[in-house]
């Protein structure tokens, strides 16, 4: 059998291709980005005339990516959409409703959660959203499982006619191990679904919803017998439940536990949801105490604890394991009652942090310098911002922005603040984020003639995630702004460079004085993107 050393993200990409993928769609977001990057690398290696050719495309945002994948499934072909956890919020509308249609070609939704918020705004747990949409969810523990689950998820999706969610976390996405590779399957032929199950008008949706409810209870039954959910014997003193990657942190400590306590705990591992209720019940009934170990929300634990007092259940809700942050082997060790591992300690110096910074010479730095200078002299003003490298403008030496909430929020929030009287307001947003979700907010501003300024940092790339090209090149931005109805006299294109600082400050000042919607575009390419282009 062939083997490859793969990161979790790569394993998923390989598996999808080997399972006969026809179309993959995504918007970049750490820790999911490498899935699409790998798919594109694999796609580039397939000869023009091969029947194994597939499309792998970056999209404007997660919603558009999701809908493209849904269309591919409608056409009868296998499709995958991948995103980071907060991206699923953007795609929530198609996501939830895709649970109601009669999925045709296998549809696999990969969502990479980020417990510990290494590179995110929240710690939301996508397993709960799979539950919310009433669709099955796989949670791999290893790179091999990420591969195997993805490979099989397409069959599963076609068998049950529902989307399947694969939930991974940062640590699995970005760590590597050796993975056994399976056979290449051929792609599905185009075959449209029959009947009306894709037309979610109320009469159909009502019927479909009943079918979804029935399907979920059937899947729940099946969950007790799938190979991913395994109950193993052990001491009755403690029952341990692990899900996904938490299994590895548990295994890391198992030999020491055995040495200290004389035997293994009884153990249930869950890699597939809906919950295997029978298996959980059987563990609960057998054991004196339960410890639930999961990376993310206390999802299984919460269900198990319920509201009626029962046996002691330990986990995040009783403080045995920290509620927030990322799980690791040391935390699990403590939760198992083992002696803490100690390494060495620094004695005489203070370990000052090294917070992330903009690259030396980043164009955003020059944009912030100009903006701050232009705003001098205003007693009251607001600068809302958004998600990308430029979020680092919140930190010294810039301290230039006041909000970062979600993709595109800078424009909408600036508008709301301006409408209720806070002036002047500037929204600072990157070009990629602007296309993702800023554009629709700008239409509101045009419609209501809101007195607000949008500063688009146009570096032609999604820098933070490793410089993926923006959905449209720089040259397209100005016509789009004009097309939205921004007065051409108030679309100002500047070069984000310190050599142009004086001029840039003057132009920004002019626009601040104008009472209406205006857009200032600060153009200069991201250094990482330049480096990448030079390498290629």
């Amino acid at each position: 059998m062939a083997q490859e050393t793969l990161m979790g993200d790569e394993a998923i990409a390989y598996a999808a291709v080997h399972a006969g993928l026809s179309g993959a769609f995504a918007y970049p977001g750490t820790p999911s980005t490498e899935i699409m990057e790998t798919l594109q690398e694999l796609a580039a290696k397939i000869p023009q005339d091969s029947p194994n050719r597939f499309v792998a495309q970056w999209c404007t945002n997660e919603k558009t990516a999701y809908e493209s994948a849904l269309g591919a499934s409608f056409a009868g072909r296998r499709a995958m959409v991948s995103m980071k956890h907060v991206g699923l919020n953007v795609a929530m509308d198609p996501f939830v409703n895709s649970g109601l249609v009669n999925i045709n070609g296998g549809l696999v939704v990969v969502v990479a959660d980020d417990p510990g918020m290494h590179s995110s705004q929240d710690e939301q747990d996508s397993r709960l959203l799979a539950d919310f949409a009433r669709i099955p969810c796989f949670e791999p523990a290893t790179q091999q499982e990420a591969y195997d689950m993805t490979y099989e998820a397409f069959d599963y999706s076609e068998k049950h006619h529902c989307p399947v969610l694969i939930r991974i976390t940062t640590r699995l996405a970005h760590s590597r191990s050796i993975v056994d590779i399976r056979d290449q399957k051929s792609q599905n032929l185009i075959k449209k679904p029959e009947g009306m199950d894709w037309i979610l008008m109320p009469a159909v949706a009502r019927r479909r919803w009943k079918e979804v409810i029935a399907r979920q209870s059937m899947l729940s039954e099946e969950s007790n017998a799938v190979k991913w959910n395994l109950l193993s014997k052990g001491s009755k003193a403690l029952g341990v439940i692990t899900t996904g990657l938490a299994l590895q942190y548990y295994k890391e400590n198992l030999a020491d536990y055995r040495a200290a306590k004389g035997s293994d705990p009884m153990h249930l591992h869950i890699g597939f949801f809906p919950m295997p209720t029978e298996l959980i019940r059987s563990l609960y009934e057998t054991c004196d105490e339960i410890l639930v170990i999961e990376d993310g929300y206390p999802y299984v634990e919460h269900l198990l604890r319920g509201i009626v007092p029962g046996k002691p259940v330990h986990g995040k809700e009783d403080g045995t394991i920290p509620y927030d942050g990322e799980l690791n082997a040391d935390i699990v060790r403590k939760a198992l009652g083992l002696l803490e591992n100690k390494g060495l300690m620094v004695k005489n110096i203070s370990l000052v942090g090294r917070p992330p910074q903009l690259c030396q010479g980043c164009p955003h730095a020059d944009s912030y310098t100009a903006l701050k200078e232009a705003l001098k002299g205003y007693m009251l003003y607001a600068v809302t911002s958004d998600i990308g490298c430029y979020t680092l403008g919140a930190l010294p030496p810039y301290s230039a922005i006041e909000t970062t909430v979600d993709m595109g929020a800078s424009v909408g929030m600036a508008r709301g603040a301006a409408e209720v009287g806070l002036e002047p307001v500037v929204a600072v947003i990157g070009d990629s984020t602007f296309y993702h979700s800023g554009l629709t907010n700008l239409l509101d501003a045009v419609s209501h003639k809101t007195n607000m300024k949008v500063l688009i940092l146009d570096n032609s790339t999604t820098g933070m995630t490793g410089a993926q090209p923006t959905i449209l090149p720089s040259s397209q931005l100005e016509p789009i702004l004009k097309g939205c109805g921004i007065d051409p006299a108030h679309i100002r294109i500047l070069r984000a460079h310190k050599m142009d600082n004086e001029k840039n400050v003057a132009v920004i000042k002019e626009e601040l004085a104008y009472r209406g919607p205006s857009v200032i575009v600060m153009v200069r390419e991201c250094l990482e993107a330049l480096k990448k282009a030079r390498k290629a």
Partner: protein
Amino acid sequence: MKYDIVLCGVGGQGGISVSVVIARAAMAEGLRVKQSEVHGMSQRGGEVLAHLRLGTEEPASPIIPRGSASLILSFEPLEGLRYLPWLSAEQGTMISAVTPIKNIPNYPDIDSVLAEINALPRKVLVDADALAREAGNVRAANIVLVGVASRFLPLKEENLKNAIRELFARKGEALVDINLKAFEYGRNYNS
């Protein structure tokens, strides 16, 4: 056999290549490898950290538990100290480059930083930049560190060299030679 390595430094110091070289050499010897990297926001000039775990059996956790690393391989002295709690008190070795990267306003006094490392029971401090320059390219400093590490790693010298050849082959013979030289300088370095 289990052997855990923490690789640390500041963004852009070539940590991933080091991880690849050691991992490939280990796999050539039939060991199982687990390797963990940092991407995204945490990569933007901040601390970089890769965990590399070698073993006759597949290591379970992708990240190294505290107190269990046999080696810290640090491209920057302050960063090396940051991960001390991961170093085994009984048998862990710290290998660090001496050159500080002062991209923060409050970088501690460098002599105190180096003194802190010197006070450790098992350590090697090396001017990796100088040796790399001598080998022909300052960017080979990361491979100098691999050379120093080769005296401690449970891996054959030849397998590490092969992995270096493989990694740089794409970039031409000259760079392969420079990196092999950098490896030698590191390996023969006497602190």
